[in-house]
């Protein structure tokens, strides 16, 4: 069966078709998004725009972390079928250094402009409910060793440093193997995966805690890191499908991908849909069942206003999160035909990517409250700044991916598993 391996990559000796025009288009979109978001500062104020930017940066960071995880998992399991699409994830990892740069404004603005801008615990003099300040809040003092300015800066640097370090190791080994064909690089990547998986698990968990969960520092959930992990992987798989179908329709992947590659990635999408639902429901159910005010307030904020009337977030929770993030993808992905038809699989991939954004909005945006302490609605001008932030950060990430795309072969042609991958289940 592996005799195919010698013939199939014949078309690959040529460099992939140029993506330079697409890259400059992505860069233009990215910069336009950033400029528009900056204009929002004068329209909606710094607080709203900062939270929107946080959504944009965490969204693309989640996808990039998901890609990192998929590459690490590929190597630790010595996987074969995913070899042909692994290279695209490696290109995606080029976005990390830019994501680090794009995160920087949040830290700078928090420390230089207004400590109360995003994370409430950065400002110890901030008045909280009940008349005292954060600095005198026993629930803060218990967590002060973790939630303080030095830790936020140090941890954020540590997150990006570990992701960039792991990415550059994986990319260098994989790209160099294209040139020299040395099996040592495969072993090198397996070592990186063994070291990198625990690092990635810890950093993504703490990133979710520091950046998102601590927006309500009274609240706690041990499922939070796992929830973020599930979104990371779902985002990366969905983005992977979009790349696969794009390269399939452009012709690059003709003769390389077969039905079974789409089936396999579709099955992973289904598995992680169930996993995401399991984790997210567990978090909700445990809090619902225990019914302790110090936990339930987080969901109350996302269901009712101070006068007991339902707010927008309740409907987003039911129709966006419960149905949109679980039931629709779940029943869609049960079908074999949908999983193996590229343009249909891409439809659900786009859907999942949109809903992950909604999920992040659901977790981040209700931190913005009005004078009654009610969550500001999503459907307002705020949504515009979220979208410009997503386009802004996304344009830069896609540009980084496309720029990297031209620097290496389409698939890792000298990977020892490439033959198996080209004839996946054939």
């Amino acid at each position, binding site marked *: 069966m592996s005799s195919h391996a010698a013939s199939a990559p014949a078309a690959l000796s040529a460099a992939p078709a140029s993506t330079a025009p697409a890259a400059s288009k992505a860069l233009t979109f990215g910069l336009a998004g950033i400029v528009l978001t900056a204009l929002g500062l004068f329209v909606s104020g710094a607080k709203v725009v900062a939270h929107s930017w946080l959504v944009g940066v965490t969204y693309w960071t989640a996808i990039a972390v998901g890609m990192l995880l998929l590459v690490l998992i590929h190597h630790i399991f010595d996987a074969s079928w995913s070899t042909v699409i692994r290279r695209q994830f490696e290109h995606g990892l080029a976005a990390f250094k830019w994501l680090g740069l794009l995160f920087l404004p949040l830290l700078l603005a928090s420390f230089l402009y207004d400590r109360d801008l995003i994370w409430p615990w950065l400002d110890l003099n901030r008045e909280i409910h009940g008349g005292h300040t954060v600095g005198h809040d026993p629930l803060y003092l218990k967590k002060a060793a973790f939630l303080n300015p030095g830790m936020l800066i140090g941890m954020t640097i540590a997150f990006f440093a570990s992701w960039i370090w792991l990415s550059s190791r994986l990319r260098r080994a994989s790209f160099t193997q294209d040139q020299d064909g040395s099996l040592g690089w495969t072993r090198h990547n397996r070592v990186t995966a063994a070291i990198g998986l625990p690092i990635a698990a810890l950093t993504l968990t703490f990133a979710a805690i520091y950046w998102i969960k601590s927006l309500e520092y009274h609240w706690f959930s041990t499922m939070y890191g796992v929830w973020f992990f599930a979104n990371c992987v779902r985002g990366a798989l969905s983005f992977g499908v979009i790349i696969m179908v794009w390269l399939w329709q452009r012709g690059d992947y003709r003769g390389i991908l077969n039905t079974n590659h789409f089936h396999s990635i579709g099955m992973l999408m289904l598995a992680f849909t169930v996993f995401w639902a399991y984790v997210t*429901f567990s978090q909700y*159910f445990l809090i619902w*069942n225990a019914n302790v005010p110090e936990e339930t307030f987080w969901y109350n904020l996302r269901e009712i206003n101070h006068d007991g009337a339902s707010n927008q977030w309740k409907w987003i929770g039911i129709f966006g999160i419960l149905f949109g993030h679980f039931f629709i993808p779940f029943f869609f992905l049960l079908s*074999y035909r949908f999983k193996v038809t590229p343009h249909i699989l891409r439809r659900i991939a786009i859907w999942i990517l949109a809903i992950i954004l909604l999920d992040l909005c659901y977790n981040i945006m209700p931190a913005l409250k009005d004078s009654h302490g009610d969550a500001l609605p999503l459907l307002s001008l705020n949504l515009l700044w979220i979208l410009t932030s997503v386009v802004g950060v996304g344009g830069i990430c896609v540009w980084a991916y496309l720029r990297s795309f031209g620097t290496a072969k389409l698939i890792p042609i000298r990977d020892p598993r490439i033959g198996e991958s080209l004839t996946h*289940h*054939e």
Partner: protein
Amino acid sequence: MSAQPYGLIATFKTAPALYHAAEAVRDAGYRHWDCITPFPVHGLDKAMGLRRSIVPRISLVGGITGFCTGMSLIWWTGAVDYKLIVGGKPLFSPMFAFPVSYELTILFTAFATIIGMFVLNGLPMHYHPVLKYDQIRRGMDDTFFIVIEARDPRFNAANTRALLEQAGGEAITELEP
């Protein structure tokens, strides 16, 4: 030996030979026939013209049944048969019925899948006419077989034998029922 044999069995030396013979038998329109191989041959289902199994649909029915069973179990015991307020919770809520429903979804899906597979494959099967063929053990080692059953409407001892011969089959033998 009775007048009507169980069918004809033909031997093939290699997987590609079997694969192409299967295509020939498929194109000749036979429906009651099978391949015997020592290992799974990728793509053979397509060469045999087999449609996808309906086991996934049986699994789905099992899963939905399990979910409904879990929900109605908790609802009937807690809100109808023996009303008891626990922890200030409502008598019934899909929230606390969900873990049970979820478990039963998995359990019933597994049952439906296994039972569906057994029934569709006619298992357990304690006897099969090919077991009387003295060379059949090699089907677990290094030889490939095609068996065409006599109950197939297109079966005709002479024509079927000719088809198998033309497809490259060797040692074509009649099987006792």
